[in-house]
C-alpha cells in the first residue's frame, strides 16, 4: 500500500468525517501529484478545513485513510508529520515567544541540528519579511505578521508537502501578492495543497484544482483543462469604432454557416459559433478579406469563479 500511495504526494481513500449527524466530508478520494500547486476550492463549510485537519492528524476520520508521501497520515503516527508543514486557518503562537524562539522550537521538534536551525530560521525570516521583527514578542504582531510567521514555521524543515488552510485570508493585497509569489516559486520542489475560497488566488498560482461542495469532491482537474472544459463557443472582436466596415460586419458573419449568433456591445462584437475548429480556421481570413481594423480578438473562456459558482450552485 505504501508503495502504491507513494506515487502521489497526497492520497486519500474514502476519507469521511461525521460530526454527529453532520457529514462534513463524504468519502473523499483524492490524488495530488508531486510538485503540484493544488488549489482546494470550496464555499465556507464545504469541508476544506476538515480535510486539512484530517491530513494533519489533528482530527480522526470516521472512515477512510489518507497518506502523505506514502506514509499514513490518519493513524496518529507522529513521524508522518515530518513529511509536511501545516498552516491552520487561524495560526496561534505563544505570545511570550519571539519569532526566533518559535522557529527554533519548531526546528527542535523536527530534530533539526543547531546550525541547520539557525540557518533555516534566518532564511525563513527573510522569506516572510520578518527579519526586523525577529526579536519582538509575537503577542504584539498584526494578523498578517502572524500569518507570515505561520508560513515560515510550516516551511522551516523543508517539507515535501505544504498544507495551507486559507493562507492569504488575513493578508493585505501586498502581503497576498508576496505570499502567492512565494508559493508559486515552490512549484516542482514542494507539493502545495492550498485551500481557499478566494478564487483569484487559486486561479493565479494553482496548476490543479479540486472543487469540494458540501463534503463531496465534485472534480479534480488540471486548471487549464478545467477552463477548456467549461469554454463557451464564442469569440469577441474589438474593432475600430470609426471603421466603415463596422456597420455590416455582423451581417457578413451571420451569413457564414459556422456562425450561430452575433451581438454588439459598444465596439465589441461577440460572435457565437457552431463549430470552434472551423471558426478558428475561417474567422481571421474572413476579417482580413473585409479589411476590418481589428483591435483585439479573444476566444471567450469562463473565469474559474464562474465555473466554481456553476459547479457549486
Amino acid at each position: 500500500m505504501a508503495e502504491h500511495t507513494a506515487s502521489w504526494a497526497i492520497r486519500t481513500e474514502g476519507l469521511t468525517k461525521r460530526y454527529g449527524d453532520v457529514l462534513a466530508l463524504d468519502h473523499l478520494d483524492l490524488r495530488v501529484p508531486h510538485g503540484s500547486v493544488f488549489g482546494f476550492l470550496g464555499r465556507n463549510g464545504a469541508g476544506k478545513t476538515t480535510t486539512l485537519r484530517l491530513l494533519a492528524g489533528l482530527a480522526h476520520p470516521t472512515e477512510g485513510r489518507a497518506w502523505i508521501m506514502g506514509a499514513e497520515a490518519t493513524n496518529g503516527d507522529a513521524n508522518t508529520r515530518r513529511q509536511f508543514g501545516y498552516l491552520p486557518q487561524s495560526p496561534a503562537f505563544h505570545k511570550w515567544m519571539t519569532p526566533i524562539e518559535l522557529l527554533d522550537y519548531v526546528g527542535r521538534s523536527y530534530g533539526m541540528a543547531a546550525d541547520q536551525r539557525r540557518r533555516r530560521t534566518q532564511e525563513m525570516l527573510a522569506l516572510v519579511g520578518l527579519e526586523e521583527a525577529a526579536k519582538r514578542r509575537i503577542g504584539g504582531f498584526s494578523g498578517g505578521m502572524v500569518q507570515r510567521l505561520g508560513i515560515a514555521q510550516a516551511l522551516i524543515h523543508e517539507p515535501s508537502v505544504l498544507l495551507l488552510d486559507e493562507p492569504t485570508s488575513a493578508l493585505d493585497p501586498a502581503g497576498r501578492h508576496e505570499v502567492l509569489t512565494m508559493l508559486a516559486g515552490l512549484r516542482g520542489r514542494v507539493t502545495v495543497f492550498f485551500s481557499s475560497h478566494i478564487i483569484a488566488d487559486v486561479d493565479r498560482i494553482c496548476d490543479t484544482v479540486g472543487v469540494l461542495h458540501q463534503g463531496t469532491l465534485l472534480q479534480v482537474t488540471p486548471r487549464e483543462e478545467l477552463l477548456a472544459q467549461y469554454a463557451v463557443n464564442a469569440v469577441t472582436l474589438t474593432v475600430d469604432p470609426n471603421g466603415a466596415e463596422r456597420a455590416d460586419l455582423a451581417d457578413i458573419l451571420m451569413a457564414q454557416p459556422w456562425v450561430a449568433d452575433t451581438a454588439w456591445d459598444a465596439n465589441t462584437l461577440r460572435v457565437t459559433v457552431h463549430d470552434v475548429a472551423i471558426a478558428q480556421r475561417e474567422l481571421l481570413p474572413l476579417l482580413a478579406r473585409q479589411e476590418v481594423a481589428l483591435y483585439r480578438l479573444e476566444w471567450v473562456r469562463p473565469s474559474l469563479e464562474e465555473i466554481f459558482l456553476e459547479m457549486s450552485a
Partner: protein
Amino acid sequence: MIIIMLTITVLFLLALPVLAAIGLRRRAWSSWLLFLVGVATFAGSQAVHIPLNNWLADIGLLPQAGSFEGPPLWRTALLLGLTAGLCEELARAAALALLRRRLPLQDALMLGLGHGGIEAMFIGGVALGASMVTLLSLRVVDLGSLGLDANIMAQIAEQMINVEQPYSTLALATVERCIAMGLHLTFSVMVWRAFERRTVGWLLLAIAYHAAVDMVAVYAGQVVSSRWLMELAFLVVTLPGLFWLWRQRGDLPRPDQARRSPTLRDQWPAVVASVRKELLQIVRTKHLLIAMALFLFVGISSPLLAYFTPLIFASIEEVKPFADLIPEPSTADAMVQYVKNLTQFLLPGVVLLGMGAVAAEKERGTAAMALSKPVPRWAFVLAKMATQTSLLTAGLLAAALCAYLYTLVLFEPMPVGPFALVNLLLWTWLLVFAAATLLGSTLGKSAGAAAGIAVGLSGALLLASYIPKIGAFAPSGLLAWASAIGPGFEGVAPLIEGMPFTNASALGTAAILIVLALIAAVGALEAQEI
C-alpha cells in the same frame, strides 16, 4: 540493602504494567483508554467480589477472612476460585459489551494489561511494600513485651520469615505478579474471543480456567509448605493458558502493516523540545516566579508563625492571666506549622498553576500548532507534568531550606532525616494533585471547564480519606505520616507502642494515582480532536 531491594521491587511492579503496555503499543497500537477500562474492570469486579465473599463467609460457605478453619479446604478453594472467575470475567465481558465495537486483539491485550496491571500495582507494589515496611518496623519492637494473643504472635512470627528472607520473598512476589499478569492477558483474550466469534463458550472457558487457577493457588497455599513449590504449582496450572495465548499472536496485525508507536529514539528530539519549551514558558510567563514566591513565603513564615504566635497571644490583655499555660514554642511546632502551611497554601496554588496547562493551549490554538509537528501527544502531556514536577521540586527545596534555616535560628535544628522524609511525603502529595489537575486540564475543552474538573478531582481526592476502610490509602494518609514524623509531633498513634508510624500504602497509592492520572490524560488527549 533490604530497603533498596524493596524499593526497586516495588518500583518495578508499579512500572511493569505500564512498560508492558508501551511494549504492546510498539508492536501494535492500542489506546491507553483501554488500559483504564481494564483498571475499571478490576475495580468493578472487586466491588462485587469482596462483598460476595464476605456474604458467603457470613452464611458459612466460606471461612471468615484470614482463616481457613471451618469448611473443607477443597470447597473453600473451589468457591474462592469460582467467585473470582465469575466476578472478574463477567466484568471484562461487560466492558467489552459496553464498548460496542469490534476490537482487535491488541485492544483485548491492553484491557488485560490494565486489569492485571492494577492488580500487580496494588497487590505486588502497594501491599507488598506496605507489609514489608510494617514488618521491618516491627523488628525494632520487643514483641514478647506486648502481651499479644498467641495466635497473633504466631501470625506475626510467620510473617517475619518474609523479612528474614527478603530476597526470596521479593523475587517470588515479582515472579508471581508477572505470571498473574500473563494470566490476565489470557483471560482477557478468551473473553474477547467470545465476542469475536459470538460464542459464549469462550466466556465460560475463561471463568472455568480462572476458577481452576485460583483454586489451585488457594489449595497449594494451604497444603504446600515451601513457597517455591507453591509458586511452581501456580506456574504449572498457568502454563497451558500462557501457551494458548502465545498461539494467538497470529491475530495481531503483521508488523509491516500494523499501526505502531514510533521508537523513543525517533521521538526524543520532539520530547526534549517540548520539555524545553515548557520550562522556558514557566520562566517567561512568570509562573516560576509566582510559585517560588509562594513556596518561599511558606518556608519562611512557618517557623516565624510558630515562634511569634504564642508571643502575640501572650501580649493580648485578656489572655495575659493564662500566659503561663501557653507552651513554649519548639522545633516540632515549626515543623507542624510548615506541614499545615504547605498543604493550605500550595494545594490551591498547584491547581491554579496547572489548570490551564493543556486546556488553555487547546483553546488558544497553540496545541494544534504543536501537535501538527512530530510531537507525540504523550510527550505533550508528560512535558507539562515534568515541568510541574520541576516547579514543585525547586519550590519545595527552597521552602525547606528557608524553613530549616529559620528554625535553626529561632529554635533547635530540625533533624535532617525526618525533615527530608516530611518533604518527600509532601512533594508526593502535591504531585498527586498536580497530576489530577493535569488530567482535568486535558479533559476540559476550555480553561474554565478544566478548572472545574481539576477542583472536582482534587476535592474527590481529599474526601477519599473519609471513606471507611480505604480512606487510609488515600493521599491524605501521606499528610498523617508527615505529621507523625519528628520530635513531639501530634500525629497518628502507632499500631504498636514503640513502632514508628508509617503509611507506605498511602505512598504507593499516591504513586499509582499519579501514573493512572497521566495515563488517563494521555489517553484522553490521543482520543481528542484538536
